[in-house]
Each structure stands twice: as structure tokens, then as C-alpha cells.
């Protein structure tokens, strides 16, 4: 291996690592706020990328049907509850939010021809379709058993994951897609060519991380999420609704996932099931941070990206084996630090 290859691999590793870091942050956030281990995080990566690819190819992405279907189911559940509680005035709002908005979006997708729109608008449309799926899935799958054990929530996560994988296959087919490059700029660094897209991924990830930091430090909703993460009951007593916090954290996680997918889709071919492995690598990073520390999780995720890049050079067939077994020494180290028996 010479320096040039090392630089190339390092560049690759940091790009992927930046994405894993974003996902790791979202996973830590969701776990801290809701105790949900968000296995389906990766599906949002795939859905974001493939929805954008669909829009660019002039196809109506299947995710819009999912959005409509979830909207209808939530409307039925919420409206029947409103009827039971004799609060009929709430029904129009329920229908508007859960059915009206998705219908409007679907109409827009029909009316405009998204393939002809400028890239930023395509990205915006893709995010508008995919991100609301996050809170909707929280509402339907997790909120009814929000008080269940971490284990039960984890099993629900896995169930949501397989459902979404199946739907992904149904919506996007088995072929992979790539989206158009955001930028064709490239820089020469020594003998190596630094791709503009790569720089964009890293910069966008950094911007997003900084934005998240300000969200949590400076805004009331960010503070509410942090409060819920620290003490669920205490936050509820202070008037922070647990389901609001859950929805909010799932919205953020879905947005981070979909945005990550959109960022990497010009440099990696994304298949309907690619998201799972990407998400799990974020998990390895998050586990390095003990599912609790944001900076350690992000650093761990970068490390995973580098490990992956270099092992693909030395032992490409065993890349996944190496990345996923790297979790074992981490767990050993974590295990040696605890000695206490705890109750679930």
C-alpha cells in the first residue's frame, strides 16, 4: 500500500464514517428518548435515496403510497378515538394532518414533473415524502407499547425493519439506483483527486451535527427531548408529553436517515436492502459510545468507516466479517467496566 492508496481509502473511510456518525447520533437520540433500539434507521437511508432516484427518473416513488396508507390508518385510529371520547371537533384536524397533507403531496408529485425540477427541489420533495414516515411509524408501531420493556420494543423494531424491507422491494424492485451527482467539482490534493461529492458529504454531515447541537442546546423542543432522555417521568410531570418527544425524535431520526441516503446516493449504488447494513454500521459506532454518549458514538462511527475502507483493501471478502466482529472487543471493554446487576 502506498500513500496514494492510503489517502484514497482514508477519504472513502471518512466519507462513509461521516454518514455512519450521523446515523449513530440518530440511534443514540432515539434510544435515549424512547428506549427504542431503532433498527429500521437504515431503511430511511434507502428510502431517501431511492425516492430521490425515482423522482429523478420520472417515476412516482412507492413511498408516497406508504405515506398515504399510514395516514389513512392513523386517521381511522385517531378519529375513532375522538368519536369514543365525543370530541368530534378534533376530527377535521385529524383528517387534514394525516390524510390531507399526504394527498396534497401526492397531488404535487402528479402535477409537477419532478424529473424536470432543479435538484434542491427534488431533494426537498423526497424528504417531504420520506421524513413523515418516521413519526407515523412511531405512532402506529411504538406508541401503543411505549411503556413495554426494551426487549419488546427491540422486537417491534426488528418487525418494523422486515416490513419496511419487504415494502422497499415492492416499491423499488430488486435493482439498485444511483442519483445524479450534486457537484462535478474535484480538487487535486497531491497526486490524489478529491471528489467534490465526497467533500460535500463530510461538510453536510458536519453542518448537520452542528445544527443538531444548537437544536438541543438552544431550542425549547431540543431541551424537551434532552429532558425526556434524562428522566422520562420527570419530563412528563413538567408537561412534556412522552408521545410528542417520541414523535419528535423519530422525525429527527427519519430526517437524518433520509438525508444521509440522499447524500451518499450519488457515490454508492443503493438497493432496497442496502440501508440495513449501513444502519448497523452506525449501530456499531453507537455501541462504542454505549448508546449514551454522542461524541464517542460519532468518533466510533468514523472509526468504523475507516476500518471498513482499509479492510476492503486488505481482505475485501471479509470486510463485513471484520466490521461486525469489531463490536466484540468493544463489548468486552464495556463489560469489564460494569460489575453491577441491574433490573430491566
Amino acid at each position: 500500500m502506498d500513500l496514494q492508496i492510503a489517502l484514497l481509502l482514508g477519504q472513502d473511510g471518512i466519507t462513509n464514517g461521516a454518514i455512519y456518525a450521523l446515523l449513530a447520533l440518530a440511534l443514540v437520540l432515539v434510544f435515549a428518548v424512547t428506549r427504542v433500539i431503532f433498527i429500521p434507521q437504515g431503511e430511511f437511508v434507502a428510502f431517501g435515496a431511492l425516492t430521490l432516484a425515482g423522482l429523478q427518473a420520472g417515476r412516482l416513488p412507492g413511498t408516497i403510497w406508504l405515506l398515504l396508507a399510514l395516514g389513512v390508518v392513523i386517521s381511522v385510529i385517531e378519529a375513532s378515538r375522538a368519536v369514543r371520547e365525543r370530541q368530534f371537533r378534533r376530527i377535521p384536524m385529524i383528517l387534514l394532518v394525516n390524510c390531507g397533507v399526504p394527498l396534497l403531496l401526492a397531488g404535487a408529485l402528479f402535477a409537477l414533473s419532478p424529473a424536470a425540477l432543479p435538484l434542491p427541489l427534488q431533494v426537498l420533495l423526497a424528504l417531504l415524502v420520506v421524513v413523515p414516515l418516521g413519526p407515523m411509524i412511531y405512532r402506529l408501531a411504538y406508541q401503543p407499547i411505549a411503556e413495554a420493556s426494551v426487549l419488546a420494543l427491540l422486537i417491534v423494531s426488528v418487525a418494523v425493519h422486515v416490513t419496511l424491507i419487504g415494502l422497499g422491494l415492492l416499491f423499488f424492485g430488486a435493482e439498485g439506483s444511483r442519483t445524479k451527482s450534486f457537484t462535478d467539482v474535484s480538487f487535486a490534493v497531491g497526486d490524489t483527486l478529491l471528489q467534490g461529492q465526497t467533500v460535500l458529504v463530510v461538510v453536510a454531515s458536519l453542518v448537520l451535527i452542528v445544527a443538531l447541537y444548537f437544536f438541543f442546546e438552544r431550542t425549547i423542543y431540543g431541551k424537551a427531548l434532552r429532558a425526556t432522555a434524562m428522566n422520562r417521568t420527570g419530563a412528563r410531570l413538567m408537561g412534556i408529553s412522552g408521545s410528542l418527544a417520541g414523535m419528535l425524535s423519530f422525525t429527527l431520526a427519519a430526517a437524518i436517515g433520509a438525508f444521509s441516503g440522499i447524500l451518499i446516493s450519488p457515490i454508492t449504488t443503493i438497493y432496497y436492502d442496502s440501508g440495513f447494513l449501513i444502519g448497523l454500521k452506525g449501530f456499531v459506532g453507537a455501541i462504542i459510545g454505549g448508546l449514551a454518549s454522542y461524541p464517542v458514538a460519532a468518533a466510533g462511527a468514523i472509526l468504523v468507516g475507516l476500518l471498513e475502507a482499509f479492510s476492503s483493501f486488505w481482505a475485501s471478502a471479509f470486510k463485513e466479517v471484520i466490521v461486525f466482529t469489531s463490536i466484540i472487543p468493544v463489548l468486552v471493554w464495556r463489560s469489564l467496566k460494569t460489575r453491577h446487576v441491574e433490573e430491566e
Partner: protein
Amino acid sequence: MSRSAIPQATLLLSLFIAALLVAPLLLPEFYLTLLNYIGLYAIVALGLVLLTGVGGLTSFGQAAFVGLGAYTTAYLTTVHDVSPWLTLPAGLLVTALVALSLGLVTLRLSGHFLPLGTIAWGIALYYLFGNLAALGGHTGISGIPPLQFFDLELRSGREFFYLIWAVLLTIILATRNLLDSREGRAIRALKGGAVMAEAMGVNTPRSKLVIFTVAALYAGMSGWLYAHLQRFVNPTPFSLSQGIEYLFMAVVGGVSHVWGAILGAGLITVLKQWLQDWLPSLLGKSGNFEMIVFGLLMILVLQRARDGVWPMLQRFFPQAPVHGPMIKAQALPRRPLPEAGSVLLEVTDACKRFGGLVANDRMSFCVRAGEVMALIGPNGAGKSTMFDGISGVDPLTSGAVSFRGQRIEALPARAIAQRGMSRTFQHVRLLPAMSVIENVAIGTHLRGRKSFVAAAFRSDRGEEARLLQEAAAQIERCGLAEHMHELAGSLPLGKQRAVEIARALASDPCLLLLDEPAAGLRYLEKQALAELLRRLRAEGIGILLVEHDMDFVMGLADRVVVMEFGQKLAAGLPDEIQRNPAVIEAYLGGLE
């Protein structure tokens, strides 16, 4: 409940076995193949019942363990011509080694690290199978020899059927036996009672490791059978998604019931077959769309019927609680008690901090054999924290604790229990779904020796009878004889406290830590409790008592220590304490 219920259960089981015996003679090949797979899957799902339903842990990587069993025999029989009967132990050994090492690194962490670890491990092993040239890569290994019983070669699914189902029924029986034993009670305490179990001397990490390994061994066994049924292996059936499907089977069938494993394996396998026929033509595309249905089904099951389908069926067959008559057994040996008046427990400068809060601040006192020492103080004074520190449930931040002359402050709760200390909890820690006698029998855990294997094959019955007799004796002593076989969760709180005392006594302690034993008791019950404690004192047991009922304390205690804000406020004889102005002020507030 009707007495005819027990024969009814036996009758159903006999009918089931009879149906299995005649099935290969009547059914066409297609259904037999289906039943063979249901059997193979149920073996794996049974491990998950033990792990998830009983132990409160879970694994998504069981398919990888099936793969270990299958690949070990495939490799050894084809490359090295080893007999399949030798590759079975070899495969189980490999499986056990991997499960033990994976368990050792994850089981001490919070519950969710194990399943996450199994996901990572399931993926890693799948790619390893697919990329190792020695294992045939993604094409796999073919030409695995059939199993042979003397001259009979098991070449067809029809012949294999009996083997699979015999293994499955044996494993079900062994699992049921295991759960109904000393080690089984410890396993059943893992879910929701780990802290209590540790305080009763159960090594909970070890129990977790054992059930994880047993579940892996079941999977490995299934893999060995699979390899010789198919006579061909490739990585696909050992992927993570198959591992997830195994968990679905266990959860849908009923994760807390051994029969739920068969039911779940049957339901999911048949449903999958059916969906794979219908969905692609319905959707006009080919692919594993049945996973959409399975995923949604799982979410619904977990939201609406977390116990799965089996309990719904069980409702149609009312079952009497199965408890045989008590067998007269030899009494368990007693621990020699220290001489009355000798110092049992000595606490020196004990401190406990929770962040900035100092819950115990330089507490020092001692307890002697054959005395009742009361620890009193207003709510929040740090009494229960002191108990947790002494008994190792929540170790002290600093300070020394000596018990019978040995330092114990750095020991885990189970090691302290081993030395003869036992306790009750202020917030009752019973296993509500277990009977009173089973709860109390957990207290006898350290007085038995028989292992998991002995329990599975029922060679533990002699010891088990002695343990249960001891538990029954303590239950009678605490005035609960008529509740012996009722569910602990159905008793009123006062009685539940008495069960806690019986459980503590069942461990044959020389020092008893009682945290508010009289709370919720009626007057006569309190008198009976006081009488019991006096008798224990007379036997030479030391008692450390936290209690708010002053009449109870002052009438019983030999010495009293008063705590306030984590510190020792006063110490002395009951009379002195009652006249102590600082104590009166702490309890009643000072005069302005």
C-alpha cells in the same frame, strides 16, 4: 379447579404423540417435508422460549448457531470422512464454545447488548460461511452422507420424521424438567427478579450464560439434523433474516410456553408456504413479500397479545396447577450458628453517594448474634440504602463491612448470601407468577448442589424434595401454610412480606436483614411476627430490623440506632432512645 384436568393434559399429549406416530404412514411427502421443517424450526424456537420467554433475554442470531451445527458436520463428514455420530458432539462443542464466548462478553451488560451482539454476530458468521473456500463459499457443501442406524439408512424425509420429532419431544421434556428445579427457579427469576435472586445467592450472569448456551445447543442440534436431512448446506438458511424468523415463531406461538415453540413454528411455516404461493401472483412481482405480513403480524401480536397464540388455545383446556404431594424427605443440614453475643456484623464509616447526594454518611454500628438490632429514622434517612450497601445489592461508596470476621464490602450480593446473610426488601420482590412455595424455594438455592443437567434428566428429585420440604417448613413457620400453592402475586401485601421473610429464612441465615417487615400487617399478624422474631433471636440468629412501627420496635429490639439525613443520630437501648431529645426532635419536630 377440576381434578380431571391433569389426566386431560396427559390424554392430549398421548393423542399428539399417537398422531405423530401414524403421520408418516398416512400423509403424502409434501406434508411430511413440511412437518419435518416445523420440527427442525421448533427445536430452535424452543431455545428462544427458554431464552426470551423465561429468561427475558433474546437473540436474533440463532440461525447462525444452526449454521455452526450444520457446517461442522458437513465439513467433517465430507472432507474428513468422520462418522455423523461423532460430528454431533463436535458440532455441539463448537456451538457451545462460540455461545459461551459471545455470552461472556455481552451478558454482563444491560439486556439489549446481547441481541445487538447477536445481530452483529449473525451477519459476520453468514459472510464467513459464504467467503471461506474450505466451506464451499456461497455454493456450499454437498454430498453429506445420510444418517445410519445400524443397517438402516435415513435417506427419505419419511424416515427422518421420527428422528426429528423424537429429538423435539425429548428436548421439550428436558426443558420442562429443567424449569421445574432449583436451577430452573433461578432462571425464572432472571426476568424481573435478578436483584432478588442475587441476594438469595443465585449467580445470575451464570444462569443467563447457561440458558444462552442451551438455546444455542438446541439450534446447533437442529443444524446437525438439517444437514443430514438435506445432505447439502449453503449459507442462505443461516442468515440473519432466518434468525429473525425464528424469533417470530417463538413470539407468535407463545414465548413463555414450551408448546408455543411448536405452535409458532407450525403457524409461521404454514403461513409462509401459503404466502409465498399467493403474494407474488397477487402483487405481480416475485420476492420475499411474506416478510411484510410477518412483520405486521409481529407488531400486532406484541401490541395486542404479547403472550402469543398458545395461551389462547390453553384457555380451552383448563389446567389445574400441577403440584404433586409433598414427599417426606430428610431435613437439610443447618449451618452452625455463631455463639450468642459474638459480633456478627460490623459496619465502619460506611458512605454511599448518589452523585451529589450523600445517602449514608460515615455510618458505624454492629449487630451481635442472638439480638434484635433496630435501625430507625424518618423517611429518607438512608436506612434502605444502608441495607443495600450491607447486603451487596448496591455496594457502598466507601467504608468497611465485616461479617463474621471477614470483609465483605467488595463482594457481590450472592457471595455475601453464601456467608450466611439473608434479607427482605422494603418494596416486595416476589415473582408474582410463581407459587408461594416456589418463591420461598429460591431462598434454598445455596443449600442445593444439583446442576442443570441433573435437573433436565430428573436425577435431582431427592435433593429437590428436601429443598421443597425446607421451603414448606419455613412457610408454615411464617403462618402461610394455607397459601402454599397460591400465586405469590395474588396475596395481600402483608402476606407477601411474610413470604419474603420465609424466603430469607429458607436460606438458613445467621444474620437476617428485615426491611419494614411489619408494614401492612394487622395487629394480630404483627404479634405473630414479633413472636417469630423472638424465637429466631432465641435460636441465636442476629436480626437487623428497619421498621417504622415504634411499639413494634421498642417492644422487640435489644438495641436501637437512629439515622437522620444519612448520619447516625443516636444509639442505645430502647428506653434511652425514647427519651433522647435529638431523636424526639427528628421524629416530632422541635419546639420553636
